[in-house]
């Protein structure tokens, strides 16, 4: 497969707001069910083990006209939930048999209640991830939560997974996470070979296709990226922070890159790599998943930072790992987690001598000129005056 064919495949999936691939997967076998989830983290192994297709719901981006969604939200609430409501109210999510709402913020939390009222026949579950990182207390809680979700989804799908089913699902998602880590490492080391626009499209495709297919396409992309190398440019290397929930329009990602920045780390679609290490395949599988979350979940605005100086250090650590020159804080307007974190993160980064810029976007932002100018000036300033 060529790079272009893989990206075309991913772009088609990304632009398909009717979730045609999910519908086709369901149509292949009338007994199949799909479970949607909102950002950021859901243990996808669980719907997978129940025989369901986990489907990421990341809003309508800049291709969806909001007709009904705005009637549900005041102007000072972020854009994501109104486009999610729009997708649902226009029938685009009617193939889902369950929807999971993780504890990302109060807007997504309350959206779970709206779903309960709008779609009383659907399995709707708010998922409180553990914020307590005490191993014993946290794992016991999270195991119980996952067990409850497992039972709920099993009832919907008609398949109660055995421990071996769960281990198999964990194993396949370990492979997916390993693939994602490899892709991110490849972009970090050779960003000219893995443009973020392409990486992002591939990640978005992974949100709607079976994980097995994603792994296959990811491997093919890595191979193609080696065989069809890009041209190295004298760009600045940046970490993008704050885009873990409502996704920026693809145009914004392209704009940052075209303005002279290589994105060498980001928190886009963070849920697919929230666990930073493999989940153990021995012992009780739910214990293993719970333990992995407590021990190996990534640092994020949606999880309590238990280290006293954790926020200060976080971006300095990321910048060092990514060998980056600076940080672009790109957060959705009215995003509590990202915007409340920003002063702490920025203060820590700047105290370490890391140049930073910040802007806000909405998933349907249509004008990129200001971002181009800001990112371009930032890239130039790094080249002229350096970073650390």
């Amino acid at each position, binding site marked *: 497969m060529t790079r272009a064919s893989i990206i075309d495949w991913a772009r088609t999936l990304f632009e398909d707001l009717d979730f045609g691939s999910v519908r086709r997967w369901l149509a292949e076998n009338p007994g199949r069910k799909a479970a949607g989830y909102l950002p950021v983290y859901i243990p996808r192994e669980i719907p997978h083990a129940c025989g369901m297709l986990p489907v990421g719901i990341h809003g309508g981006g800049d291709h969806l006209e909001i007709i009904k969604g705005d*009637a*549900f*939200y*005041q102007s*000072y*609430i972020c854009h994501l*939930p109104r486009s999610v409501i729009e997708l649902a109210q226009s029938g685009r999510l009617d193939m889902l048999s369950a929807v999971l*709402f993780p*504890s990302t*913020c*109060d*807007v997504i*939390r*309350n*959206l*779970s*209640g*709206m779903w*309960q*009222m*709008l779609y009383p026949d659907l399995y709707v*579950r*708010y*998922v*409180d991830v*553990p*914020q*307590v990182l*005490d191993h*014993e*207390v946290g794992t*016991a*809680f999270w195991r*119980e939560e996952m067990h*409850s979700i497992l039972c709920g989804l099993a009832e919907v799908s008609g398949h109660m997974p055995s421990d071996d089913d769960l281990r198999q699902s964990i194993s396949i998602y370990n492979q997916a996470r390993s693939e994602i880590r490899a892709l991110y490492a490849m972009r970090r080391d050779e960003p000219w070979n893995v443009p973020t626009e392409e990486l992002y499209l591939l990640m978005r495709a992974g949100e709607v296709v079976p994980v097995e297919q994603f792994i296959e396409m990811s491997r093919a992309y890595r191979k193609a990226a080696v065989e069809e190398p890009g041209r190295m440019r004298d760009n600045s290397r940046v970490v993008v922070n704050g885009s873990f929930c409502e996704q920026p329009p693809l145009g914004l990602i392209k704009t940052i890159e075209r303005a002279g920045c290589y994105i060498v780390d980001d928190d886009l679609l963070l849920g697919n790599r929230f666990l930073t290490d493999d989940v153990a395949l021995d012992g009780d599988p739910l214990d293993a998943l719970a333990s992995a979350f407590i021990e190996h979940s990534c640092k994020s*605005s949606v999880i*309590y*930072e*238990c280290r*006293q100086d954790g*926020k*200060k250090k976080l971006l300095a650590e990321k910048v060092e790992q990514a060998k980056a020159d600076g940080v672009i804080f790109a957060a959705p*307007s*009215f*995003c*509590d*987690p990202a*915007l*409340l*974190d*920003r*002063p*702490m993160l*920025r*203060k820590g980064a700047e105290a370490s001598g890391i140049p930073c810029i910040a802007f*806000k976007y909405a998933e349907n932002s249509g004008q990129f000129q200001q971002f181009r100018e800001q990112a371009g000036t930032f890239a130039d300033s790094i080249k002229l005056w350096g970073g650390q």
Partner: protein
Amino acid sequence: MHKPADAGRSERDVYKDRSMVLQKEMIARHFERLERAPETKEPVVYTFVPGNLTELVRSFGCLPLLPEINALQSGMRGKSGDYIAEAEKAGHSEDVCTYVKCDIGMLKTGNIGPTGTRLPKPDLLLLSYTGCYTFMKWFELLREEYDCPTVFLQIPYQGDGTLSPEHRKYMEDQLRETLIPALEKVSGRPYDEDRLRRNLALSAQAEDDLVAVLHSAKQKPSPIDAYFGGVYYVGPIFSAFRGTEEGAEYYRVLRQEVEARAAQGLGPITPDGPLEEEKYRLVFEGPPNWTSFRDFWGMFAGEGAVSVASTYTKVGGTYDFGFRHDPEDPLGTLADYCSGCYTNLNLPGRVDMLVKYIEEYQADGFLINSVKSCNSFSAGQLMMLREVEKRTGQPGGFIESDLVDPRYFSAANIKNRVESYLQMIDARRAGKTA
């Protein structure tokens, strides 16, 4: 028909009943004690209103300090605008909670509290994570300013409308394994369960009296205003005084006062004096605006509109639905309390509560004050409006303002909306009688 707004009126002109004076004295004493804490060595615990564990904190001889209360008091005293500007100057987004920015701004300008006394630094930040995501960030932000431990207590959200035994155990485990050891360390005192039980018994006593006060609004005319007046009534029980003798005494006095008014068939006391005629009975959802609190109240009181029930006064506990702190099960009851706070309930539960209020209190309608700052309250309120209207057949009104950012209180717009809304109720009444 209605009385003009009178923001410039001095405090001397404001009509206050005895319980309000009593409360003011209690608060003043508490803040004086807080100011002296560095000398008296009484440990100070910062925590939040929803899910506050005052009985436990006080059982260790610690003094609770609630940043939300400071922020709202700063808003009422006209200080919050400058504090917010200070925080935004320091890089805090204009999009986020103004309570947080008010608190940060106050801290950055000397940490002089609402009563004019200096606030002590915390010895412990007790992050009781109940019904509000922002709480987590708030104390992560404060933690950067203070060299003190932070204890995180996760209160699972009632996503399916109930508290499961597993979630209850999770909270009890955290209390036992994390919070109590932290309080022991900060205070130098061992956990004293008997003392906690005594505090819990005092809480239950105060809660009984508070509920009697809230239920009095079922009478016509209502002797209380359950929203604007209600925020005063819940002040002590939501803050530092639950589980204390003075808290219990306050609610005993308040109940007597309200029962006396009810017996005489009198309406509520407003800042301009007793309300002469109850024309509209309303249920309120959402927090009030604090920067123009008196003007806001006046827009309703001036029209003879009385709040007979409100959800905001349940953010610190849903006592009128039967919950009482139980001295026989000290940690379990604290878990139950935290879980049941209003913003920890799911949206269908919040709708149920509004419907019940409208029916039980025979309200003419309900009004939502949607505040820009608070997604925990505001996200979903437009849908709640439609659901409650559908289920009760009563008209809903929708107002937008903010907690403590004076830039978001547009008096003329809000007044217009209130008047239009009340006219709509009039029109419906006329339609029914025609």
